């Protein structure tokens, strides 16, 4: 900062040199950077130390989550409070038929049991919180504190998941992955501001993935079945699991393979029986499924998730507009694609109408290449990539997709982001785009700087982490193999920079320019721009992942 300050005598030496040899034991020597307490490099760190370190990182994150308790929360807060009330005040047979509040229970039974478990503590904290009628829209301080705390505490499942996944990887990779997942801005926004339990659920997914990577297929399959009974949206990856387990676990000849199939099959059936059995017994099973799969909703969510259908809708609009210009008569659609299937009318003017069945087949078709790979050569090291890809397909082509669903593949992809420079680059874009697409969830002024800072911090950490990780490894490689140094180091290319700058431009337009030009009019335009712009990034990610999977062998 100041040239003269460097020329001035060093601070410490201005005091008499004897400072350093003071006899007092009170002040230790100041050589913080060269301790040789651990003399030898230990390839596998002691689990104790590892646990301390991951706890350290996660506790720091917990402090931030703690600070965010009074921040804005969406109606999902009331949804979960209502579920606490339902599971606490009603017998199991009425859980899925209660209609006191519009926010009916629509997650699978294990999640209901989870709420039931929480409601026990909730009733101790504030009995009105779990009261079915009096509790409606109830928001006392203890209620907010309690519900936020349940999310914060249940996040430790995620920490355990990453711990399992990274305990055998190198020190540096491990730390970076922790930072990427535990400080994921997306999870912070969705779980700790918007209010949901994604950290907890993704934690279960990561535990399952870690088991598969270690070759413990039975455990992996079992945990995944449990996950499905917590949140059925994770079922998108079920085909991949099925093919992979069939080919990888059920090996060793016809009889042995069949035996294993029976084992794993019964494990899964047992899980599902535990979840749905009681409802079958009470004759509620149809009601449960009716709640879990509300196909009455539209193709898109109120705010369009940045996926393939955004392009489809836009194309339809453009076609309709140009056809009208050319003199054709085009009937304006009466239904909206965010609403349900109202009668027989299609929300599209020109293009064919999309039904849930269509989206379902497209998703399956998109996953197909990965299924073929898994069938031909089921490798544990590829499984995370495949699962993430399956969720990407679900996100891109699914029916009524929420923007939050992008977390389902962003978090698992963090685990493999350090496998190669290409992965790191891809992850860099993807996680920024996915986090940015979540911005509209928090629309109030108070949370605006929080979400921006979370994203900035994440991006900076990622950039620093990736670039130093890949330069160091490559310096070694460059010395030994004399490969080109630049080719493998982490650099954000000009196209990437342009795209990210575009994000900033879209944001600035939505926040500042749009209000000036249109004032209160066209409030959907900035949101639409975010969807469309992010959809490009998501599309890129999907294609990139597909190529990577097809290429890899």
């Amino acid at each position: 900062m100041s040239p003269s300050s460097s020329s001035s005598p060093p601070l410490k030496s201005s005091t008499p040199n004897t400072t350093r040899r003071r006899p007092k034991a009170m002040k230790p020597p100041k050589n913080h950077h060269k301790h040789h307490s651990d003399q030898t490099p230990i390839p596998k760190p002691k689990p104790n130390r590892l646990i301390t370190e991951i706890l350290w990182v996660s506790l720091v994150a917990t402090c931030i989550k703690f600070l965010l308790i009074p921040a804005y929360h969406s109606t999902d807060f009331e949804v979960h409070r209502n579920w606490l009330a339902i599971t606490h005040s009603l017998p199991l047979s009425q859980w899925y038929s209660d209609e006191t509040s519009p926010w009916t229970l629509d997650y699978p039974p294990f999640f209901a049991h989870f709420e039931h478990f929480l409601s026990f503590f909730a009733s101790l904290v504030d009995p009105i919180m779990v009261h079915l009628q009096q509790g409606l829209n109830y928001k006392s301080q203890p209620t907010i504190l309690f519900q936020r705390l349940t999310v914060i505490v249940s996040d430790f499942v995620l920490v355990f998941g990453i711990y399992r996944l990274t305990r055998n990887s190198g020190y540096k990779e491990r730390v970076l992955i922790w930072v990427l997942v535990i400080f994921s801005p997306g999870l912070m926004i969705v779980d700790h501001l918007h209010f949901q339990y994604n950290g907890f659920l993704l934690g279960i997914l990561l535990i399952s993935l870690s088991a598969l990577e270690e070759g413990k297929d039975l455990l992996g399959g079992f945990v995944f079945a449990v996950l499905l009974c917590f949140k059925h949206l994770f079922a998108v990856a079920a085909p991949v699991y099925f093919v992979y387990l069939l080919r990888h676990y059920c090996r060793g000849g016809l009889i042995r393979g069949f035996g294993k199939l029976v084992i794993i099959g019964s494990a899964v059936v047992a899980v599902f029986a535990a979840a749905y059995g009681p409802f079958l017994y009470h004759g509620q099973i149809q009601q449960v499924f009716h709640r879990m799969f509300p196909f009455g909703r539209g193709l898109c969510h109120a705010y369009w998730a940045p996926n393939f259908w955004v392009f489809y809708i836009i194309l339809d609009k453009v076609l309709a507009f140009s056809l009208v210009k050319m003199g054709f008569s085009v009937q304006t659609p009466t239904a909206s694609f965010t609403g349900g299937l109202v009668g027989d009318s299609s929300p599209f003017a020109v293009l064919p109408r999309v039904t849930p069945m269509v989206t379902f087949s497209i998703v399956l078709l998109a996953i197909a290449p990965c299924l073929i790979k898994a069938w031909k050569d089921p490798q544990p090291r590829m499984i995370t990539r495949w699962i993430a890809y399956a969720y990407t397909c679900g996100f891109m082509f699914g029916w009524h997709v929420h923007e939050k669903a992008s977390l389902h593949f962003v978090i698992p992809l963090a685990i493999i982001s350090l496998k190669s420079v290409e992965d790191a680059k891809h992850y860099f874009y993807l996680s920024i785009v996915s986090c940015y697409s979540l911005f509209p969830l928090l629309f109030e002024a108070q949370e605006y700087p929080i979400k921006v800072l979370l994203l900035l911090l994440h991006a900076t950490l990622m950039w620093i982490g990736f670039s130093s990780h890949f330069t160091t490894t490559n310096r070694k490689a460059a010395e030994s193999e004399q490969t080109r140094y630049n080719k493998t180091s982490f650099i954000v290319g000009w196209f990437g920079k342009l795209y990210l700058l575009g994000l900033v431009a879209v944001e600035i337009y939505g926040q500042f320019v749009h209000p000036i030009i249109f004032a209160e009019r066209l409030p959907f335009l900035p949101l639409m721009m975010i969807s469309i712009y992010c959809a490009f990034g998501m599309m890129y990610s999907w294609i990139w992942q597909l190529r990577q999977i097809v290429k890899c062998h």
Partner: protein
Amino acid sequence: MEKKTKKATKPSRDGSESNIWSFLTQKGTAASFICITLFAILVRIAVSIHPYSGAGTPPKYGDYEAQRHWMEITLNLPVKEWYRNSTVNDLKYWGLDYPPLTAYQSYIHGLFLRYFDPQSVELYTSRGYESYIGKLLMRWTVLLSDVLIFFPAVMYFIIVYYSGIHEGSKSGRLWHFAMILLNPCLILIDHGHFQYNCISLGLTVAAVSAILSDRDIVGSILFSFALNHKQMSAYFAPAFFGYLFGKCLKRRNPFLEVLKLGLAVLGTFTVLWWPYLYSVEAPFEVLSRLAPFERGIYEDYVANFWCTTSVIVKWKRLFSTQALRILSLVSTVSTCLPSMLLLILAPSRRNFLFGLLSSSLSFYFFSFQVHEKSILLPLLPASFLAIDEPLIFRWLTYFALLSMFPLLRRDELILPYIALYGLFVLLYNAPVQREDTRETRSPFTTLKYFAIACSLLLHIVYLMVTPPRRYPFLFEAVMMLLCFCQFFFVFMYTNMKQWELLKLSSQTVREKKNI
């Protein structure tokens, strides 16, 4: 970002794997400083969503309303009227009682507020104005001041402080940066309770760094600014005076040097007080606002000498305010005198930092009308010494937090209190520093754990138990006693330390002569 600190710190633990954590420092110090800065801003913003002091409590509200009211007054009245009682400026309702620079700052912030929310600073009608957007804007003014003044000042300090020391201590540097920036007390008071300490403290940090890099004139100007923002900055005055005076004495032409500094200070004061220099009475009118003697020698339960000993000696009953004023003046001067003399005799940089700590502590103990929040001032030099004296720094922070607990509880800031306390413990124990503290495990260990256990217990008791009806402030008094003991220990230690430094310096002088 603490990740960053942590990373930075890790290499020390396993020398061979040092690359692992240093990936943040590897990319250059700038990148890691950016990370810590972003994190520090995030923490501040997250704290700022919590309530401020006096939220929704008419008729007097709290510090938030005071600051807003000053913006209203400075914006709507001519400069001469700011400190004068009138029909529109009722000095009993949060009249300005800080020096002119605070008033100018209020004016600038008032402009900012008026631009976005004119209602919030309208004369008279805006009293007790509270709104969602108003709160946000006010919070933003603090954040902006913090980022524009305190952050660069701390960065400057770190650069100066480490410009001479070994190159490799990047991780320690980062840790130190994080420790000063993420001081829980400062964040809680400025962004939770609502004040602008970041400005006066930031100016002080800048002054200290300028002086450490031998720019004495710039340093004294900056310190004059700090003094003119909050008169409490005078807590540091003996140290500044002692160090600069001692330094001048060692130069070839001491008189000239002193004259230069004196003129710089005088000039700064003249410029800042210019609007009030039109007559002889005007500056005194302002001055009388700055010294609120009528408020008594202490308020509430502050862990200083007067309040703590008042359990035994009823100062307020025994002496008149006039007598107490003299008493407090004499005791303050006499307690900070040793430290100042030591500084004049041995004006080394290290000694200067210790001198700042001991003089601010003696003011905290003995001066008139001290508030709990004043512990922020001793904390600042303690954080300068964080890497030299980690134990002292940690100790002071823990008990400073405890001493502010009743205040923060009144403000309903318990959540951020717990979170920042936890964050401080975590960041402090980021492994860079661990070895240093480990060595101090000596006879004091049991005592240390005992004090910590007491503090923990007091927190819980204070939250959970209703005090006996006869002694409604029993727990506050116990907290105050405990904190006073700890602060006093730190005070004694720093004075001892300065004494030691003097002995060392005279030793070297003798050695040099012998050679």
